[in-house]
């Protein structure tokens, strides 16, 4: 009988403590999910397709002068993992014999926010990816020309024997930029 009384007492205590477990405070869990993002596009005030028109020198015997264009910008939205960094790499589809197509980026400028990495030295484009900007982390450049990485292209006749293979023509080259994952 004493044993049964003890059990009943224990049940009563548990019941009372459950009934009074409500209090003036409560909490819950909020999970924040942030996707990994790697987005890049090319922007300009006009067309993204540019022309570099080489011009004959004024004096016979001189080389063809370099031509430049700085109308293009790269816009980026990036979210990296906790250990990740990214590069922007660049390559072309077909090189022109006798002519170098070069590109260099300025450091980031614009209305966005983030960790923008470091623009590398001027690259002579080839069909293999090379690093234009390295060590980016998370950021958004803001959208449109005037935001992000301003590119300067230079077309420059090669100063070696390959100049002999240069032919008058219109060559369409596709240049591809990639924000690495």
């Amino acid at each position: 009988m004493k044993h049964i009384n003890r059990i009943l007492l224990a049940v009563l205590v548990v019941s009372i403590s459950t009934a009074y477990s409500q209090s003036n405070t409560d909490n819950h869990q909020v999970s924040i999910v942030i996707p990994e993002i790697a987005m890049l596009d090319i922007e300009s005030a006009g067309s993204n397709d540019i022309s570099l028109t080489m011009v004959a020198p004024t004096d016979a015997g001189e080389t063809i002068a370099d031509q430049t264009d700085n109308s293009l910008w790269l816009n980026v939205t990036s979210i990296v993992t906790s250990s990740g960094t990214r590069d922007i790499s660049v390559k072309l589809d077909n090189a022109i014999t006798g002519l170098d197509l070069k590109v260099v980026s300025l450091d980031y400028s614009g209305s966005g926010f983030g960790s923008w990495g470091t623009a590398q030295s001027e690259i002579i484009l080839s069909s293999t990816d090379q690093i234009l900007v390295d060590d980016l982390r998370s950021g958004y450049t803001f959208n449109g020309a005037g935001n992000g990485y301003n590119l300067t292209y230079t077309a420059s006749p090669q100063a070696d024997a390959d100049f002999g293979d240069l032919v008058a023509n219109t060559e369409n080259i596709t240049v591809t930029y990639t924000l690495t994952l």
Partner: protein
Amino acid sequence: MLNNKKISITQIKAVFVFVFITSLLLGKDINHASHTVSIIIPKIALLDIESESTNNITLQMKSPAESGDKLINATDKSIWLNVTSVTESGNARDITVKLDKPMQGIDIRVVSNFYTGSGYGKWGIPQPEISLTQHDQSLVSNLRSGITGDGSSNGFNLKYSAHSIDSQYGNINSTNGREIIVTYTLTH
């Protein structure tokens, strides 16, 4: 025998007169009585979190459609606060809120609607949207006594949102679910 009867009636009259005079002397109405009833009303402050399903919510930020744009904010309106409150005379309460650990680059905000539901009381005023920190901030101020009704759709409906912080954007990292504990308190 007749004498005895006369005496008996006289005695009855005497008793009646005695009782009448005694009651007048004591100043009491014999058909009324009174006593004291003490009403004890406890001070009560109970609060819990309710929703249609789980109280654990997820704020899923999303990629923008356009390169160069920022993360898209996430929102949730599924959580309600139920309250039973009895205050002391002249006192008012707040509902306060805080989180356990902030998240770098992300601003987690909460704001309450005005009270709605099947309850009764004096519900106070929701404050402007709060950016949550580890310190208690007032979500609703100047509550007094009331019962919200139990369950979701009764009480204070919360709107959570997650926003990227421009000045810390470079430190944002992707995550499949960083867990944060948010605590609500009905102050005493």
